[in-house]
């Protein structure tokens, strides 16, 4: 007899985490890395990744103490309801903010590179509606979609990296370890937000089918983007050098523009790559949008998130339309990622308090 299985499977957890991390930032990642630490960027991004993965372990530890609740509920249990609710609203604002920035970053790149005559608003509305449609289907559908899309995204990134090796020049990667420890510390701090995405574990943990395996599989899910990000930075600096990479708005796209596809059946590799990048942005935004609607529902103690998901749409759109130009978009994304670091700190505090007060749920 076939048993109906509820919840997110192990492998889906892997791809869910992975797609939450690989989002729009893939395009600008090598720039952020080489801006932060020059040629040492490759190592700094690796260190930032290792630090992030240890935070991921701590988050999983926290979520494991309350296997039936999301952070919205157990923050109320740990730090009494009122501050807990306030924190829940804060989390909601963060998730909404991320959805908005993903939407705007996505639309801006599409307008700049592909649909140059389409109004920005149209691109944003179409994308937001597609995401809404996806979100209304629930977390299980989203995880299935991630399971389907994420391997393709990782594959396209891998192809980009491999084909870029033709233009690779090892000398561009020197000098290494010349500037002392300081750039490493600063750079690590600068690059931590790049890996944001694993904090979704605070919300999706209760939906997992097999809770004892979540940590292992989410670490797998973290490992894929980590590997991709490090090699991508390595290749970008190897091809363009740290200075030019830091001066390029979307260095990943620039790498794609420099590729000769063997056999030349696809003259423009950059367009080919963009297709998969759209997948990546789509899954990222779907996850965050879903979690935003979920968190506000839980803050009010309600069950059905769908009305909120629909109601949120204009707000996400407004956040997305807020920045007036590319400079403001970059600034805005930076603020949002600072809030993201705040979320990490907050969850660490929760973990500490729950340990001290020996609070445990479910």
């Amino acid at each position, binding site marked *: 007899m076939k048993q109906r299985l509820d919840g997110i499977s192990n492998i889906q957890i892997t791809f869910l985490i992975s797609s939450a991390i690989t989002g729009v930032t893939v395009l600008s990642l090598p720039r952020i890395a080489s801006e932060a630490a020059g040629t040492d960027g490759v190592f700094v991004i690796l260190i930032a990744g290792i630090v992030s993965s240890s935070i991921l372990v701590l988050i999983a530890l926290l979520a494991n103490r309350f296997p039936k609740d999301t952070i919205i509920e157990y923050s109320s249990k740990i730090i009494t309801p009122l501050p807990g609710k306030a924190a829940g609203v804060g989390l909601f604002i963060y998730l909404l903010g991320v959805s908005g920035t993903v939407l705007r970053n996505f639309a801006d790149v599409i307008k700049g*590179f592909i649909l140059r005559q389409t109004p920005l608003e149209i691109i944003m509305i179409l994308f937001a509606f597609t995401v809404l449609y996806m979100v209304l289907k629930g977390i299980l559908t989203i995880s299935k979609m991630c399971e389907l899309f994420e391997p393709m995204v990782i594959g396209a990134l891998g192809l980009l990296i491999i084909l870029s090796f033709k233009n690779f020049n090892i000398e561009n990667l*020197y000098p290494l370890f010349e500037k002392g420890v300081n750039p490493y510390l600063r750079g690590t701090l600068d690059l931590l937000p790049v890996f944001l995405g694993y904090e979704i574990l605070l919300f999706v943990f209760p939906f997992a089918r097999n809770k004892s395996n979540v940590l292992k599989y989410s670490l797998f899910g973290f490992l894929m983007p980590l590997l991709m990000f490090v090699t991508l930075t390595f290749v970008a600096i190897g091809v363009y050098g740290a200075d030019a990479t830091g001066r390029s708005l979307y260095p990943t796209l620039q790498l794609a523009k*420099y590729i000769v596809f063997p056999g030349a059946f696809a003259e423009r590799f*950059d367009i080919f790559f963009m297709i998969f990048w759209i997948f990546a942005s789509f899954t990222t935004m779907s996850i965050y949008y879903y979690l935003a609607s979920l968190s506000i529902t839980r803050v009010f103690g309600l069950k059905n998130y769908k009305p909120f998901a629909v109601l949120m749409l204009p707000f996400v759109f407004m956040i997305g339309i807020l920045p007036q130009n590319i400079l403001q978009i970059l600034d805005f994304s930076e603020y949002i990622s600072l809030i993201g670091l705040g979320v990490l700190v907050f969850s660490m505090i929760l973990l500490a308090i729950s340990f001290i007060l020996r609070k445990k749920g479910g």
Partner: protein
Amino acid sequence: MLKKLCLLTMMTLVSLSLTGCWDRTDIERYAFILGIGIDKGEKDGIVVTYQIALPQGIMAAGQGGGGGESTVEIKVDAVNKKNADQKLLSKTNQIPNYSHLQVIVFGEKLSKEGIREHLDFFLREPEMRHLTKVLISRGDSEKVFKVKPKNGDSTSQYISEMLEQTQRFSLSVPKYVDLGMLQRKLAHPSDLLLSKVSKIDDMLSVEGGAVVKEDKFIGWIDSKQAIGYKLLEDNVNWGVIDISIGADKKDRVSFQIIGSQTKVQPMLKPKEKKFIFSVKLTIEGDVVEVGQDMFKAFDANFVKNVEKQAENEVENLCLGVFEKLQKSFKADALGLCEVVANHYPTFWDKHKHEWKEYFLRSELKLNVDVSVRRIGLIK
């Protein structure tokens, strides 16, 4: 009944959305720009020559029909590159498209005044690919595009393929520079060597190179100096050098390089404020043509002699180009500054601005090792 009505509405709506090509632009409406020539215009202006593909002409040539032209050249006076694009629009019924741009050719006069400002557009424009090659032409670039290759290819494709193919087999054609490479180089002001294209009678030639100092073109290097340049830059794939052996240096032997490796090791002399670059060249190759007595090549002494003379020749070629760049151009087109920055990062951080003085005092120490592997099919 309601279900059927729903279905009907759905079908109508779907059929409406399926006609989604309302804003498509036919491929014939695009002007695919294959090559761009930029020359000096009157006063501060520039003259831009666009070479635009005519798909009908290319297809006719492919089918052996001949006849029709495969490209059309349009000349525009403008203040800068984007301004030229605007003016081009008023001269053609098509929309310019850069996704197939093969070459950008700067005229001699214009490049003497600087090319950096004219490259900005190409690096900023999202449509541009980074495989476009950048050259400097002898005389005005406009002349170059007037040469029509006999095989029906466009001039731009012809130049582009010429650079790609010949630089692998010929030593006198240095490795071309494309936009991706320029993006890297222009991150800080540096000297470089661009490909040179010149019109000789009715033919095009890409022999030699153009030295660009900071961003101004300052002079040519000839084909012999290009050989030295390629050897020093470690870009040699294949290629032949001519050597003469024998007591009276009358016997000519052609030595074909089939593999070459160059290692550059800088050494700082702080007192003299200079660098000594020890260059180790390891070359192997075949004897491919022997003058005079054809049966003398199968002989250990002969082979040794060839190796020795080849070493001398390589040394002369390398020193020749180094001296030319250092003494007459005072330009570090070999990119030795990058080698120094890699080996002496702390020195580089402090003395970056003094690099030119260090370079002018620097010396080249060559250590060439040539091995002859084969002598062809005649014993």
